[in-house]
């Protein structure tokens, strides 16, 4: 089972002992987790200390360590330098990918994202004709920025007219930041494991962003976080509480419908990154394996993640 380790309380020390990540406070062990099971370590508490030994052990297993600001958005990510045996060839293919190819890949990602947004709205009983139309209008490289047009419609429909998506804000925005951080760490891990370089994106290229590729690939998955945030907010939870964190961490194990049967979100993320590296190598967009949007019933089932 892949697990998310979240460090939220100050004054703890993280270290590695044999096959375990050890969390200790005042030199006494308070928890241990098998290193092989760790998908990501997310650190919020600014007084946390850790051993280099642990960071090395995490990197060797392809687990990522994410450091967050007080708004729960990631500030820094530690990923392995080497994640795949064919890394050199793949990064070369990634770097040399033609402009038309990356533009087409980005179109496919945007279409998938809009379809996911439509699926989420539909599950809330909101008509989504406009989204079907928008997703058909996306052209290679999305020159008309249909992605933003969809977002402008999506947020008010999902969260109400007053809502503004703002990375710096708290409340529901903090919930979203946290949820995206969990997904982002998962995508960063998949990208590195597929032998790709996280800072060479297919669209998020010129934004001084070291995790551009993870930010590209996270797009279709984002609505999963949105659903949980809406359901939490409906229950009056607008703070990043342990319950909220638990719900978001559970997302990585949620089953999604896929080409070859049902797989978890974390497997779907891995397949997406693997298929992307194949696209770079073959120069064709055909085999990009994007996650399929779940049905309304399946999305409603996400509610069970909230205790």
């Amino acid at each position: 089972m892949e697990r998310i380790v979240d460090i939220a309380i100050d004054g703890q020390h993280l270290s590695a002992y044999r096959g375990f990540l050890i969390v200790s406070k005042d030199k006494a062990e308070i928890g241990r987790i098998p290193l092989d099971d760790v998908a990501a370590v997310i650190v919020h508490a600014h007084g946390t200390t850790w051993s280099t030994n642990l960071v090395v052990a995490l990197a060797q297993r392809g687990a990522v360590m994410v450091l967050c600001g007080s708004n729960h958005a990631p500030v820094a990510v530690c990923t392995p330098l080497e994640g795949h045996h064919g890394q050199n060839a793949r990064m070369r293919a990634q770097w040399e990918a033609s402009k038309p190819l990356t533009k087409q890949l980005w179109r496919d990602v945007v279409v998938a994202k809009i379809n996911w947004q439509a699926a989420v709205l539909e599950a809330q009983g909101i008509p989504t004709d406009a989204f079907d139309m928008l997703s058909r209008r996306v052209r290679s490289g999305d020159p008309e920025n249909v992605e933003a047009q969809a977002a402008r419609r999506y947020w008010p429909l999902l969260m109400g007219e007053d809502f503004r998506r703002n990375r710096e804000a708290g409340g529901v925005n903090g919930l979203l930041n946290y949820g995206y951080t969990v997904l982002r760490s998962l995508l960063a891990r998949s990208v590195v494991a597929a032998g790709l370089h996280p800072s060479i994106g297919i669209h998020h290229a010129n934004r001084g962003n070291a995790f551009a590729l993870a930010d590209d690939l996270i797009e279709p998955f984002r609505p999963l976080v949105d659903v949980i945030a809406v359901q939490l907010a409906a229950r009056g939870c607008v703070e990043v509480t342990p319950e909220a964190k638990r719900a978001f961490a559970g997302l990585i194990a949620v089953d999604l419908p896929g080409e070859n049967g049902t797989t978890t979100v974390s497997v779907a993320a891995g397949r997406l990154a693997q298929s992307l590296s194949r696209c770079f190598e073959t120069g064709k967009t055909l085999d990009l394996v994007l996650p399929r949007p779940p049905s309304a019933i399946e999305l409603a089932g996400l509610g069970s993640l909230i205790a």
Partner: protein
Amino acid sequence: MTVTQLNGYRLMWIFVMFDLPVTTPAQSKAATKFREFLLDQGFEKSQFSVYARFCNGKEQFETYMRRIENSLPDRGDVHILTFTDKQYENIVRFSGQRRKRQKKNPDQLALF
């Protein structure tokens, strides 16, 4: 989409129980090596010579079993048991004369 991360029928526990000879220094060294190997693989000590690990399902079990098979000491007995998370929940634990609380299953989120 059934939310499966806590499906007690898919999730399993692996228990490794061993009886290794420790009469010569070489034998104790081999026994220690095996014990440390289990720790490296994320098996937690349940009691002396009994180590347990949570796993995702059959495929992951096969992986661990193969690894254990490849790291067996020359002599001694090793038994590997698996049971489902549902069965694990029903374990009764005594410590001294007192009944101990059941161990909590691992959660997708480890919050500290």
